[in-house]
């Protein structure tokens, strides 16, 4: 299992379009992936779950991946959350 702390730089945080893209990206991996902001671990493959976290720009989240492609999953999702092209 891998864990990574990331500061979100998406302009509108993880809302609507970026949330959909984040979930779509997470779903493309075999590993089970979760994301947390403070205490609740949310399934990163659930649109409503990810939107419910209400992550805004500048906030820190932790992503966890567990499975055969966990390395790639963490790297890809980290790049997504840092990158500013998707908001």
């Amino acid at each position: 299992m891998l864990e990574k702390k990331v500061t979100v730089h998406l302009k509108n945080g993880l809302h609507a379009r970026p949330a959909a893209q984040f979930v779509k990206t997470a779903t493309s991996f075999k590993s089970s992936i979760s994301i947390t902001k403070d205490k609740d671990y949310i399934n990163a493959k659930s649109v409503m779950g990810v939107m419910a976290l209400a992550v805004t720009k500048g906030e820190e989240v932790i992503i966890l991946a567990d499975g055969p492609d966990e390395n790639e999953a963490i790297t890809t999702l980290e790049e997504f959350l840092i990158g500013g092209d998707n908001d």
Partner: protein
Amino acid sequence: MFKKWFGNKTNHHEEVIMAPLNGEVIPLEQVPDPTFSEKMLGDGVAIVPRDGLVVSPVKGEVVQLFSTKHAIGIRSEKGLEILIHVGLETVSMNGEGFESYVSKGDRVTVGQPVIRFSLETVRENAKSTITPIVITNPEFINSIQIETNKEVRASETPIMMITMKE
């Protein structure tokens, strides 16, 4: 089709979603935002609102309410997750013109007011007042029946009937 929905009691694999707003129902494909028209967040319909009151379309629980109060997620008792996104590009309004009557975790019934917004403020400051209503957990859905291009009344007119996977 809608008369039939009212006439027959739905079985436990079906769920009727009532209109959360007064307005005209349009197909999701006509929403000028690919996040919704390409169904990135899920399948559903959109309403062109006539006024600014949003009510719960189902009996269930508020599972998400964005801090800017322009979007709400409600999970029905049967497990469908319904996202109501008031207007397009309304996130950038930072909550101006929006107020909410509920919080995350609250239980709601059909017709219970959840959000009130200023139609004027949204019209002036956002891309559109068009309000998509989508089901965000497609893994629960077998099929969705919708009827578009007609006027609906909040909590009175059904907008979708969903047959769930067994």
